[in-house]
Every structure is written in C-alpha cells, then in structure tokens.
C-alpha cells in the first residue's frame, strides 16, 4: 500500500442559492481552485472520484453531462452517493484508488446545489424504507408526520437522549452554535456569516423542534469542494506540506427498516452511535494513534445540529462519554484551545450536503498545511480527525490526517 496525501484543495463560494451558476459551473469553481492550488492540470490526474445526492437536485448523473467542467473527459470516473457521508465516502474512493497503487493522482469532487431541486423530497425518498412499512402496519399517516420530518425530525430525539445522559444543557447548545458561527465568520467559504454572535442571541431564536432552536440548526447550502489526492512520493514534488491521509474507516450502523428513531445501534438509544465509536477506534489504530484525546490536534466532527458536535466529540473517543459539555466549558474547543473543534465553522454553518463530509477532511488538511487563514488554529497541527454522519442516518466515515505518513 502506498502513502496517500492531500496536495490541493478548492472550494466554491457557499451560499443558500447560487443563482449565478448552474451545477456544472458550481463544481468548476471548486475544481479549478484545486488545480490552481497545486499548479497541476487535469492532464496530471489519473481518475475522477465524484459524489453528490442526485435526489436532492432532482438531476441524475450530473457528473456525466458536466464531464467537461469536472475535467473528466477521457478519464476513469466513479460517482459515490451515501447521503450525508457522500463527501467522506468520495475521499474513501480516492484514498483506495491511490493507496492501492492503481493511480498516483486523482481528484475527489463533492457538491450539492440544493436550490435547484427539493431536498425535503429527496430526504423523504431516503426515509422511504422507514415510512413505507409503518404505513403497511396501519399507522395513521398524520401521526407519522407529527413524529417529525426531515433531518431535524430524527436529531431531536438524539438531542433529548444525549442531553439527559451527558448533562448537556440548552446553554451548552447555545454555546456550541455561537462558537461555530464565530469560526465560520473567519472562513470566507462558510455560508452563515454571524461574527460575534453570542449564546444569548442563539437562545432567543425560535424553537424548531424541541430541544433544537433555529440557531442550533444548519442552513441549506449550495456549494462544492474538490481535493487533489496523490501518492506520498508525488506529493513531495508538488508541495512542501502535504496533508497525509493516515487512515479512512467507515461503519454501517443499524439498517433503515424501523430505524426511524435516530439511527442508534439496533435503535436501543438514538444517541448511542456505536458505529462512530467502531469507526473511530479503527481509524486511530490504523493511523498509529494510541491516545486520541492527546494526539489529535484538531477535530472536524460532522455536526449539522449543535448537540451533535458534543455527542460526536465523545463518540470520536476524544473524551469519555458524557464529558464533552465540560470540555466545551473549559475553552479547549475554541480556535485557541487545546483541541479546537470545527474551526471551519462546521456543518452547522455550511451544509452543501454531498460536499459536507469532504469539507471536514478538507478543513483538517488545510489546518495541517497551515493554509486555513483567519480560522487557522493557534496550536501546531500534527494530527486531525474528520468525520461524517449520513447514509439513512446509519453510516459513519472517519479519516485521520497528519503531517507525516502513517508509520
């Protein structure tokens, strides 16, 4: 197996409705920025790995009609679609392509242009395997609807359960949201720009679905991300500071049928997230990391909702279970802290769904390369962990990145 590194990153402008560009043009912004970042061109690339959730745009096989904008003519091309984890799974695809030695350089592309289509309808088709059996069993459709719709309808149960088991209060949720939005204001590619927003201001936003307020929830974003990923050998010739992908793991948790209630393992508890613990443990093991809470310098958990930042911080084994609210209070999660979390502003500030899990990896890579600009964390970054949550609420992806190849 050969070493794998991120050598170049490109991001499009991220806002709620990119009316000025179509899907292909949006992707082109990220792709061309990634090439510019490296000085490479599509001629230097062996294959294209791409992903989005076509059900959200209502456009199928966009990578084929946009092949020119993808730089994909005459090249092997593979699309990967796994829900919220899509971007992370695309990184897996790129990692396997290079680690296997089949290719020395590939481009990984992930995007979502939600404003073109109907994301809620797309989500409904993802939830179909849960909804359809309930109807077969004679559940009243109006009761089902009142149980919650969209992603928040699942996360509300996760939030209540997590808050009870960890002692996390609504003030902690407000603090998480304010911290992330403040970080986002330092990131020109982040969607929501709310510099200096306070937890008190978040607490005043309207209730969406108990216990989550408007300020605790992600926006719907149009955006794209591209990364050029090469072998360790090639990376050294392209940049002085490649970000090595030390490990990529994933875990498929409880399946969809009757997994209606938030995707905990076997639906025992919606905040259990055993799959995340399994994937994280394996990722650290492969990356040679023995004590993640000491050896990881930056974490980018996939947290579209405030409670998830704390829950996944724990499930990524960065502290003991129930310990994250106290870690937040200690100040350690902020940009100048010991283990900054979501320096990019996180998914809670920017959620171009298909791209989101890749943007976690991209942020970790930028932090390692020292290219994050205003949202660069204060401490030196040697190792970082990126995470994605998606599928039908049941897939987890984890990647550990570092400034050196895996040992």
């Amino acid at each position, binding site marked *: 197996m050969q070493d794998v590194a991120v050598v170049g990153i490109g991001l499009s402008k991220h806002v709620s409705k990119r009316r000025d560009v179509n899907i292909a043009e949006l992707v082109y912004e990220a792709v061309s920025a990634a090439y510019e970042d490296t000085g490479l061109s599509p001629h230097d690339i062996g294959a294209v790995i791409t992903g989005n959730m076509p059900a959200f745009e209502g456009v199928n096989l966009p990578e084929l009609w946009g092949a020119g904008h993808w730089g994909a003519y005459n090249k092997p091309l593979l699309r990967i679609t796994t829900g919220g984890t899509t971007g992370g799974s695309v990184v897996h695809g790129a990692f396997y392509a290079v680690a296997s030695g089949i290719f020395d350089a590939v481009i990984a592309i992930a995007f979502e242009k939600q404003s073109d289509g109907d994301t809620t309808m797309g989500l409904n088709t993802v939830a179909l395997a849960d909804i359809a059996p309930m109807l077969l069993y004679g559940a009243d459709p109006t009761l089902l609807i009142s149980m919650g719709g969209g992603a928040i309808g699942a996360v509300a149960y996760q939030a209540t359960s997590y808050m009870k088991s960890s002692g996390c209060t609504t003030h902690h949720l407000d603090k998480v949201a304010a911290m992330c939005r403040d970080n986002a204001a330092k990131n020109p590619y982040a969607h929501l720009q709310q510099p200096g927003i306070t937890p008190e201001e978040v607490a005043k936003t309207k209730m969406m679905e108990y216990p989550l307020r408007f300020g605790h929830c992600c926006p719907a974003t149009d955006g794209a991300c591209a990364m050029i990923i090469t072998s360790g050998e090639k990376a050294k010739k392209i940049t002085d500071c490649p970000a090595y992908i030390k490990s990529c793991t994933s875990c498929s948790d409880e399946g969809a049928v009757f997994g*209606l*209630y938030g995707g905990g393992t076997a639906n025992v508890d*919606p905040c259990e997230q055993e799959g995340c613990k399994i994937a994280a443990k394996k990722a650290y093991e492969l990356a040679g990391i023995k004590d993640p809470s000491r050896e990881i310098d930056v974490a980018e958990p996939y947290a579209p909702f405030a409670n998830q930042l704390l829950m996944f911080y724990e499930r990524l084994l960065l502290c003991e279970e129930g310990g994250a609210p106290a870690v937040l209070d200690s100040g350690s999660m902020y940009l100048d802290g010991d283990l900054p979390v979501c320096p990019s502003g996180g998914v809670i500030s920017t959620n171009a769904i298909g791209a989101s899990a890749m943007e976690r990896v991209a942020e970790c890579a930028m932090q390692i390369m020292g290219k994050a600009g205003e949202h660069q964390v204060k401490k030196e970054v040697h190792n970082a962990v990126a995470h994605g949550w998606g599928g039908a609420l049941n897939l987890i992806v984890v990647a550990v990145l570092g400034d050196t190849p895996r040992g």
Partner: protein
Amino acid sequence: MNEYKEETTSIKGNWPLIHYRWKSETVKLMANFLEAFKEKKVLGLKCPCCGLVYTPPKPFCRCLCRPEEWVEVSDEGVVTTFTFSGAWSFEGMLEGEGESRIIVGVKLDGADTMFLCMLEGSDPEEVNVGMRVRIRWPEAPEGKIGDMMIVERAT
C-alpha cells in the same frame, strides 16, 4: 427560442410516498406481532446469539444473527427520549399547524429497543427521560400498529 438565462431556477419535487406499499420481509414478522395486540399483548423477537429482544421485531440482529424466538414483553416501560410536535415546537411555521403532541421514545420492560409513541394525558412540563409509561390500549384492539402508539403515565 434561444434564451441565455442569467439565473438558475428551483424545481419542487413531488413523490407521493404515502401511496407506497412495499414488499417488505418485516411484514411477515409484524403479522404475528400485530395479531397479539388483539389480546392486548406485546411481543418481542429474541436473538438466539446475543439475546437482544426486538420490539417491534426485525429480521436481522445487530450481531447479524436472525432473531427467531417470540417472547412476551410488558406493556409498561420507560421514556428514552422525547420531543413535541405542532404548535409547541414549530412556533408559527407551516408544520406547526395542527394538533400539539408529546412524542416519546418508549422502551418496554423486557425489550431492548425503543419506538415512538404519543404521550397523552400529561403536560409538556412533566415529560422526562426515565418517566414510566404504559400503552393505553383501545377497548377492542384491531391488530394494527396504531393500537400501541398511544401511551400514558404509569405511576
């Protein structure tokens, strides 16, 4: 017509999921599960390998064995999570129109998994994780999932 558009447009989707009637393996398991409701009994399906009891039943266990032993579980249990629907939650949003409901995750005694129910007869302030609840059976259960979807405070 040959028009260059400066801006993209949004297209609304329409996929009437409510009309879906899937072929689903769980329906066979559920037939047994639902039939027991007529006697106001709740069944669980127990995994022969790890012992986990699934209520409602599932064809595969998390340990990848196939649960096959039917066991009776209690119609009383504990609230594992909750939220509110309707006006208590959405505050004036479209989804807020309609009846306010307390929705609780319930793990019945003897079962290892949870499912969602409506809690009736309680105020929003009194619901909490750990609260004891019991299924409020209809007088003559018809053997449908709706028979077990209303719970009330048990103590």
